[in-house]
């Protein structure tokens, strides 16, 4: 039996007390040795629960898990001896040094004698942490923590390696390195489980289990899933730059168009089966290779259409040539740590400007200075022409802010959240009631008014958070990591509203570490270690790193190359 698969999941069901729907519903799958199995799905899909069931740290309500023939319910000890597990947040002791963390896991896994030294050598070599053995784990960068977590998980030469969202929030360079490292482990016959909400990672796995809301949508090689959308994905090129949002929304309203997104200057469209290419008065259609996300959307039955009730109801913002957001040499120093270094940019009316970078790069700090939540150490920030230092509250009344993870009051119900946030933004009396009613109608919240925000399904949480940020019809919208970990349909719906509002002249600023989300922006600033290393349209940035005759680079390729160049020039400066 162990020959077929290292890990066998049989009809797993797990329901947590107090939840209406099971966290996992009748999951069957087989994970094979020497394969990279992607556990793919948005937040709340059940990825972590599934991994914990494999480790035996949770018990299923029904069904069974076996690892190398051991039952996870009755033989958990035997399983613990042969698995390596890196939980979210890497499971490191932050107040122990790199070598102390390794020593601990070596002792726990009884790696002794000669083998111990050679194992340390090998892991430190492999993770390039040799120079940092004395450093506390808490003082490592995100990428290095991730590598140390991996080294600890690999200590006992596991047969099964379980990695729970190892790449979340880490810069693309570290992400690629980690991927390469884990790939190398496979040749020894290890079975690797890599859970992720990044769909581009799913494509590179040997097999995937696609989860959504506790249900398995697909399991098998990723290419087989892509087959179902083969020949239905197109790119539309050569459209008037200023009209591409309008064209997209028109297209999405047509039957047979299942999904569409902005991709720099182009549009990317997924058509339903046997649908002829719709006619457009401009642009040219090119068939392109499908992505995993196309297939995911197809399985889910297509995107939300092209009609934003929110944008329809919004008044057109007055036209103006002046920049709506302006940052002039913004810097922020926390003690001796420089979170943001000399960042300058300006954003026009009706433009989407994105800050792209890994966690800890300084995106949120820049944001907070632009919203008047943090005083810059140096430089100035203007919103709608108002200096945030002197006219903070006036400037704030022109902006809407949606913080990371939605920042709703989870113990207040939907109506109370709407009332509270509208009050914060200075709405009162008749207008407050009118705007709340409008939001409830637009976002279809009637049935949820009495639910606490914490109990809402993820998609409705996202709607409520957006409603709270736009109720006062701001000129400028700040979105901090608005859709990280959210399923693609919810993300489409969100961007539909944003695109619609931008058409009405609202200016939007976004931070993200998602490469595809950055493609929706008109222009992006690449932020790396507090510095804005490049600003331009997504296509500009890609063009900068395009090599003659090479493959067209992705935004991630561009990011990695531009980081490399900026490090080279910084090294050149210090050398000179």
């Amino acid at each position, binding site marked *: 039996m162990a020959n077929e698969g290292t890990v066998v999941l049989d009809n797993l069901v797990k329901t947590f007390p107090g939840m209406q729907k099971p966290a996992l519903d009748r999951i069957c799958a087989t994970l094979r040795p020497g394969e990279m199995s992607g556990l793919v799905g948005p937040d709340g899909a059940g990825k972590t629960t599934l991994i914990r069931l494999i480790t035996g740290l949770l018990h299923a309500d029904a069904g069974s898990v076996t690892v190398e023939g051991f039952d996870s319910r009755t033989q958990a*000890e035997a399983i613990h001896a042969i698995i390596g597990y890196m939980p979210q947040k890497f499971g490191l002791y932050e107040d*122990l040094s790199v070598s102390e963390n390794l020593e601990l896991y070596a002792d726990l896994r009884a790696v002794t004698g000669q083998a111990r030294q050679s194992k340390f050598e090998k892991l430190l070599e492999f993770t390039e942490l040799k120079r940092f053995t004395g450093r506390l784990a808490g003082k490592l960068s995100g990428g290095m923590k991730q590598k140390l977590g991996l080294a600890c998980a690999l200590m006992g030469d596991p047969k099964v390696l379980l990695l729970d969202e190892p790449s979340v929030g880490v810069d693309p360079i570290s992400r690629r390195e980690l991927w390469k490292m884990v790939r190398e482990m496979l040749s020894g016959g290890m079975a690797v489980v890599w859970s992720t909400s990044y769909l581009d990672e799913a494509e590179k796995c040997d097999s995937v289990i696609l989860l959504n809301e506790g249900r398995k949508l697909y399991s098998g090689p990723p290419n087989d899933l892509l087959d179902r959308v083969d020949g239905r994905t197109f790119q539309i090129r050569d459209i008037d730059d200023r009209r591409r949002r309008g064209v997209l929304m028109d297209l999405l309203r047509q039957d047979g168009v299942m999904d569409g997104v902005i991709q720099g200057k182009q549009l990317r469209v997924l058509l339903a089966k046997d649908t002829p290419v719709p006619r457009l008065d401009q642009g040219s259609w090119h068939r392109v290779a499908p992505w995993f996300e196309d297939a995911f959307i197809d399985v889910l039955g297509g995107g939300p259409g092209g009609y934003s009730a929110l944008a329809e109801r919004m008044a057109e913002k007055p036209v103006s040539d002046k920049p709506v957001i302006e940052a002039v040499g913004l810097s922020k120093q926390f003690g001796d740590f420089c979170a943001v270094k000399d960042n300058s940019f300006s954003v026009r009316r009706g433009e989407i400007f994105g800050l792209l970078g890994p966690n800890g790069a300084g995106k949120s700090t820049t944001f907070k200075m632009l919203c008047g939540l943090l005083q810059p150490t140096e430089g100035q920030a203007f919103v709608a022409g108002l200096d945030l230092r002197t006219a903070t509250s006036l400037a704030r009344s022109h902006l809407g802010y949606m913080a990371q993870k939605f920042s709703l009051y989870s113990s207040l119900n939907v109506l109370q959240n709407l009332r509270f946030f509208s009050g914060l933004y200075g709405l009162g009396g008749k207008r407050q009631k009118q705007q709340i009613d409008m939001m409830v109608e637009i976002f279809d919240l009637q049935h949820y008014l009495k639910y606490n925000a914490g109990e809402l399904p993820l998609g409705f949480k996202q709607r409520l958070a957006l409603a709270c940020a736009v109720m006062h019809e701001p000129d400028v919208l700040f979105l901090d990591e608005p859709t990280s970990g959210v399923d693609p349909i919810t993300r489409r719906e969100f961007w539909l509203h944003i695109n619609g509002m931008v058409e009405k002249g609202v200016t939007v600023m976004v931070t993200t570490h998602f490469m595809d989300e950055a493609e929706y922006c008109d222009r992006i600033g690449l932020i790396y270690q507090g510095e804005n290393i490049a600003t331009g349209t997504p296509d500009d940035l890609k063009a900068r790193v395009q090599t003659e005759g090479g493959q067209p680079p992705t935004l991630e390729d561009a990011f990695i190359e531009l980081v490399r160049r900026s490090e080279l020039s910084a090294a050149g400066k210090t050398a000179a």
Partner: protein
Amino acid sequence: MRQLKALVVKEMLQIMRDPSAIMIAFVLPLILLFIFGYGVNLDSNKVRVGLVLEAQSADTTSLAEAFANSRFFVVSIGKDRRQYQDDLSAGRLRGIIVIPQDFSRKIAQHKRSAAIQVIADGSEPNIAGFVQNYARGVLAVWSQHQSEDEGRSTNAAAIQVAPRFWYNPELKSQNFLLPGSIAIIMTLIGSLLTALVVAREWERGTMEALMATPVSSGQILLGKLIPYFLLGMAAMFLCVVVAMWVYAVPFRGSLLALSIVSAVFLLAALGQGLLISSIAKDQFVAAQLALMSAFLPAFMLSGFIFEISAMPEPIQVLTHLFAARYFVTSLQTLFLTGNVWPLLLLCMAAMALIALVFFLLTSRKTRKRLDA
């Protein structure tokens, strides 16, 4: 064994690098000892009272002098009790002592013992008690002297009350507060600190990583127990040294007895801390639970400050559930009396029983599972 040693070494390194652990184990005890050594004083020296002389005579004047010279009172003398009523209700005075008009007459008659009236502020029962007792004492001494001066040898005078306080002859409250505060400190280390560090492992995801290795849940528990046991004992010795040498609290028991008693109590405190941490998996809840179920009872129900025999019956019964009660008794005995083994053994048996219950519950709750 190797795994357990690795866990203990890891915990020790964390304790040394965590400023809050050092704070609770070594700085807090010093602060507490300082407060209880200097700040809190339950003895009432120099209580302010009003003395009302309703009539002037040789007897009343000499009695008034006796009050004025007492080291317990600061006296202001008046003729009418009404003039002190406002001062009493405003808290400027703690009591009024009235020497009535017929005082001299009754003394002269020898028929009845002469009465004086003591009015005390009942809103502060502790001090009211002092006022009454001190006044009684002054009166007794005074009548003693009167009898001797006059050469009379009455029956009353023949019976002399010579109060002597054993174990704490000066009635210094430091002498029983400082030993008691050791119980507070060890409760903090055993229950609060231990519950917090385990909750922190849950929050940071390290507990989950540990559980997925071949270590057993018993090893994980012992890996916490041993380092914090040692830390608690170290803090205890620090407290004893400071109490004895800085505050000159007598220590009449043996160090061995103290170590054994403390070890037994620490096991109960640690057991409680570990039980809390198996229920509360975030630091906020763990801290709340530890404060409510361990720290506050150790403070209020242990006899450390509030006398248990003065509590209502049901509360007195309740105090038996807390190991701190037995520990405070043992400590006060060891410091002020000596090795009273029958008492100490009884206390240790009770604490050991409580510890056992905690460990049984903990081991039942702690499995290598996230949903149990």
